[in-house]
């Protein structure tokens, strides 16, 4: 026997409501005999018991609903507002008290549970891929070698020029003297007769044989308190003895006890005049770099910007003597028709002669 689903449902419902007719009961019995597995399902049907369906919460108490002031202008059930405000920590004192009263209210608890589920939880497994590409390095100031070399070269050039100019410049020396002259009268000026002797220690070849020191005696004269090797000095050298130089030095010191006015030496007289005139002022004449370097080189080597031929030879001889460590004699003979220059290195004699023009 076959029954449609609708017929079966009608029979089952009529069975439970005890409204089966005689024919319907026969139909149902026959069907259950054919399908015994439905017998248990039919008898175990659940009946609702309405005895425990009672309201236990305080959701509908008007006072509770009126006390909710948070999110007043927003739509929603007061319990939603309370739950969200509690979640956000925005409850007022009155609402906190109300919340305590609602702790046993299942309706509120249900809403509060749903609200608590709306809190977003970050997924810490979600990480930025390839973090290194975001990193940066401190900008590095690159080392440029040629700039360093250029800077060193400029510094060396500057120092070199300074060394050429500074230590041997008589101009500066006299310029300082000129400044001193502008000062109130010194003891030296007050006692011009008392010479001031100072020793000059230098390895400079020029200075080794010609110890010079200029002191201002008055505004118009310069006193030499050391001596330039003169003919005596040359003769001492010509004696082919190193003692000659020592003798010369002693003579020089002895000679310095008397002031000597310088008249016939071009460079020193010129400089002394400038010194007497006051501080030197920088010349406005233009000069080439080459001329400037030659001038400063001469001042460094020979003690003057424009050395004479004799000064050149004499200085070079002294250089050579100190370099090779062998006494070197030098003589310059100025004859009527020719000039002769003779160097004597031990047994070796070198003579240079030139006819006068």
């Amino acid at each position, binding site marked *: 026997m076959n029954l449609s689903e609708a017929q079966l449902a009608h029979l089952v419902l009529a069975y439970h409501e005890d409204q089966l007719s005689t024919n319907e009961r026969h139909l149902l019995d026959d069907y259950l005999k054919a399908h015994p597995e439905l017998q248990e399902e039919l008898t175990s049907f659940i009946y609702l018991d309405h005895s425990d369906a009672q309201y236990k919460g305080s959701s509908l108490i008007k006072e509770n609903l009126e006390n909710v002031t948070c999110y007043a202008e927003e739509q929603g059930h007061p319990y939603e507002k309370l739950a969200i405000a509690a979640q956000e920590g925005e409850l007022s004192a009155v609402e906190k008290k109300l919340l305590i009263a609602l702790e046993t209210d299942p309706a509120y608890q249900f809403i509060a549970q*749903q609200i608590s589920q709306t809190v977003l939880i*970050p997924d810490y497994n979600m990480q930025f891929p390839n973090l290194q590409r975001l990193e940066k390095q401190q900008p590095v100031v690159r080392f440029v070698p040629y700039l360093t070399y250029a800077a060193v070269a400029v510094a060396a050039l500057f120092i070199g020029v300074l060394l050429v100019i500074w230590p041997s410049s008589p101009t500066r020396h006299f310029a300082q003297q000129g400044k001193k002259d502008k000062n109130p009268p010194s003891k030296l000026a007050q006692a011009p007769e008392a010479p001031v002797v100072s020793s000059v220690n230098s390895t400079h070849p020029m200075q080794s044989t010609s110890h010079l020191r200029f002191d201002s005696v008055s505004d118009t004269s310069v006193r030499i308190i050391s001596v330039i090797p003169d003919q005596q000095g040359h003769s001492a050298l010509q004696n082919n003895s190193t003692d000659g130089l020592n003798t010369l030095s002693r003579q020089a010191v002895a000679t310095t006890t008397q002031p000597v006015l310088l008249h016939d030496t071009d460079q020193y007289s010129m400089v002394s005049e400038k010194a007497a005139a006051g501080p030197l002022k920088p010349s406005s004449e233009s000069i080439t770099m080459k001329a400037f370097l030659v001038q400063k080189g001469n001042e460094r080597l020979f003690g003057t910007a424009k050395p004479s031929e004799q000064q050149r030879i004499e200085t070079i001889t002294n250089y050579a003597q100190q370099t090779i460590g062998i006494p070197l004699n030098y003589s310059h003979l100025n004859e009527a028709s020719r000039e002769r220059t003779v160097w004597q290195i031990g047994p070796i004699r070198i003579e240079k002669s030139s006819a006068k023009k």
Partner: protein
Amino acid sequence: MTAKEYNQCVHEFADRLYRFALKNVQDSDLAQDFVQDAFERLWLRIDHVDYQRVKSYLFRTIVNLQIDRARRQQLQHAHLTSLPDPVQSPGPAHDVQVLINEGVAKLTEIQRMVLTLRDYEGYSYQEIAELTNLSTDQVKVYIFRARRFLKQYIGKMEVLL
């Protein structure tokens, strides 16, 4: 700020910025671009940004990038907004977090932003207001509406399931 401090910021904030951006834009590549853009801007202004305020600077940059993107999208896809939401039925497997994520995707741009700043980073209303150029009351209302929407969304989905 030094380069060393900058790199410390990268390690400290990159993941958090990425999570925040990804939650809002729902696009991994775009979120990476936002984070990278934020750090590039920070690097360009490294001498002007205080190390103590660098977190706010980075999040504000991300927020501004999202707002700019949202505006562009509104202009480009204005006609799509009138169409009904295609996602009405639940997916095959749902737990609460999945439902929440779906619901977050349905929030408005600004609601999603303030909610993620609130929940992910724990910013106060005042801080969120400063980051997003909103008032504190606006932030408060946006968060309330977002939570209420999510609560309703969860309830609706659970009934359907």
